[in-house]
């Protein structure tokens, strides 16, 4: 395996980690707000805040890790994406900043405020929408280099069918992943009313994830036929994804094995995400950067890999400890320990 491939795989794994943890967080924000609007906040908000409070910062680090690593392994991405994404990137930063700090203000501060919950809910949908455009851009056609100057074709992006299909998939997936996880969390907490409500949300958003995935394939075929052809070579990834989806929904629908169900939701997105990633290779930015052309020098690359392995030896046990304390400790989940 080339070192470039190792590098992009590491980054992709972390982006997948962010996809799952952040989806839970983003979706939870939306459900919390929706709960308040419909007068059901007392049912689900305790569950949500018990899970989110200790881990929201960790979620954020997955993202930081991904973009610092991306620029580290592939410095050319800083040049192309950096120049092109100033405005959308800044908007995403502002949304993330509002979300993170307002969560702290609302939850650790003196008292809850409706404004905080509103912003927390809305940013939960806007952030995935804006971040997903980075993946859209990577398909090419939205960034152009003319006479050594990188230009972002914002008009193209906003009028692109493909771009909107990705946004739709991102939002729907966030809500499905989040609801599936919170269903499991509520079942661990033996919180029947919350479980019943969250299970309904999970089922409601299940079919739309598949429909919007299909929509993305259709749009991709129009937008980047080369990439679409490639995805067909890796079709088994997407079939496996669909299969995992069916198992997950089967369990949730039949009210059993919520933990296994969530595991299969994770697998569903794992296969889809990695199938998308592999078929996208070697391109990081279509027609401009590949993992080979944009790669940093050999020495730095090796150092980064070594640092990554050393760091992982530290992080994995720490993450397991975190999960044991707040995810798998039945007493904490039930709210008997705080």
């Amino acid at each position: 395996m080339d070192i470039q491939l190792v590098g992009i795989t590491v980054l992709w794994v972390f982006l997948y980690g962010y996809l799952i943890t952040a989806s839970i967080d983003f979706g939870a924000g939306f459900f919390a707000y929706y709960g308040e609007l419909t007068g059901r906040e007392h049912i689900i908000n305790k569950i949500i805040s018990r899970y989110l409070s200790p881990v929201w910062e960790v979620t954020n680090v997955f993202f930081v890790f991904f973009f610092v690593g991306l620029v580290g392994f592939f410095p050319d991405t800083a040049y192309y994406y950096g120049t092109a994404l100033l405005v959308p990137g800044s908007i995403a930063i502002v949304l993330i900043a509002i979300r993170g700090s307002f969560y702290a203000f609302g939850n650790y501060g003196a008292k809850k405020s409706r404004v905080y919950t509103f912003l927390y809910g809305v940013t939960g949908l806007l952030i995935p929408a804006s971040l997903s455009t980075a993946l859209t851009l990577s398909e090419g056609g939205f960034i152009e280099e003319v006479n050594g100057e990188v230009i972002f074709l914002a008009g193209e992006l906003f009028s692109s069918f493909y771009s909107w299909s990705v946004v739709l998939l991102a939002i729907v997936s966030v809500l499905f992943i989040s609801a599936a996880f919170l269903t499991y969390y509520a079942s661990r907490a033996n919180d029947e009313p919350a479980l019943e409500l969250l299970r309904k949300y999970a089922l409601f958003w299940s079919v739309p994830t598949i429909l919007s995935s299909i929509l993305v394939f259709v749009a991709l075929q129009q937008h980047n036929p080369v990439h679409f052809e490639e995805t067909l070579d890796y079709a088994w990834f997407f079939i496996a994804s669909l299969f995992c989806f069916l198992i997950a929904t089967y369990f949730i629908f039949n009210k059993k094995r919520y933990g296994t169900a969530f595991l299969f939701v994770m697998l569903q997105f794992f296969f889809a995400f990695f199938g998308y990633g592999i078929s996208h290779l070697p391109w990081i930015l279509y027609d401009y950067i590949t993992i080979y052309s944009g790669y940093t020098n050999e020495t730095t690359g090796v150092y980064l890999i070594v640092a990554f392995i050393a760091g992982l030896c530290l992080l994995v046990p720490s993450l397991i400890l975190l999960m044991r304390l707040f995810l798998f400790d039945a007493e904490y989940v039930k709210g008997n320990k705080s």
Partner: protein
Amino acid sequence: MDELELDSAMLSRMLTSLTLGFHIIFATLGVGVPLLISLAEFIGIKRNDPYYTLLARRWTRGFVVTVAVGVVTGTAIGLQLSLLWPNFMQLAGQVISLPLFLETFAFFFEAIFLGIYLYTWDRFKKPIYHWIISIPVIIGSTLSAVFISTVNAFMNAPQGFTMVGGVLTDIEPLVAMFNPATPTKVGHVVMSAYLTSAMVLAAITAFSMLKGKRSIYYKKALKLTMTAGFIFAIGTAVIGDFSGKFLAEYQPEKLAAAEWHFETKENADLVVGGFLDRETEEVKYGLVLPNFLSILAHGNPNSEVMGLDQVSEDEIPPLFIHYLFDGMVGIGMFLAALTFFYMIALRTKRFNVENNWLLRLIVLAGPLSVLAIEFGWIFSEVGRQPWILWDILRTGHAATTSDSVGLMFILFLLLYIVLGTLCVTVLRKMFKTNPAENELEEITRTK
């Protein structure tokens, strides 16, 4: 002066300064406050003193809010490096991405254990287990500061590569990371963060005492923070002196600009404050300390100190950094003197350490120490101009070419105003609705 033109490079500098200037307040507290919390918790356990434990708990509650702002603004500056300085990141990223990457690991480590620390106060049978969790938090936050400071050190003293016709070869990431600026930069950043955090917590305590809250709880808080502040002030001063000597050797033009030292000569004098006449290059109304610049630069009153006459006109940093340098050093000395005086008063018991005037000075020391951090960073960054990567890459050539930077500046200015205001409001409300007195009552009752 064409420097003041509002082109995208200038606007990028302004936006970066804005984000860094705001972030650094929270980052500094993020590095230092965990150490003080851990100290308080440890003393509380060892002496079985519930006042110190309460102190640790209350500081933690406030800390969570500042940490959140630190995390989100840190994410902002992390992304802005690529968004505003794409050419710099493309070039320097080849060499210096290792510590940037390591910094995210340290941050990751800190975030995990901070989450655990916050929500496990009563979960362990032995309180010392909870205290142990604070150690990885301190290690993580301090290492974050260490790694990110090596990146800034590299910008001041780049090495570990060879540049041939705009292409970097012979890259050695570790040599780049451990450049000559690293020891003093890292030491100064970490120690001054500890100092500032101690002084901010001391100032909050003194403020409460001035409002008439004089129970033993506040006395213990003041004693802890001022004692820690004294140690960190001495540490900061010693490392600060080494930083001066580093500048004299590796970035002499930065020192010369900071000291308005125009003519290369031996027995150089140090000028504090004053006004500069740019035509005659004379300083008026400044306090002249004979031979002190030679001592500061090389530790020897007879040594020669390079002046700005050796620097080509277009490589001289802006001369207003003189005031920033003096401000930073002046505040540092004030903090050292204040904490020293407090220690003497505490030991000899001749002087009342809760004298209102002393408390007022301590209240003043809080914001002043934060100001010194700001002065220090602006001095360090502006003093490196016109370079973003010293002697390699000019700032003007590294910035984005986008026309939207000005608009983004306004967007972020608004964001920081909102975050800053809300952060202060939330903190004030939090401690007002649940004053220490409520929790103190519980302690006295259980005792």
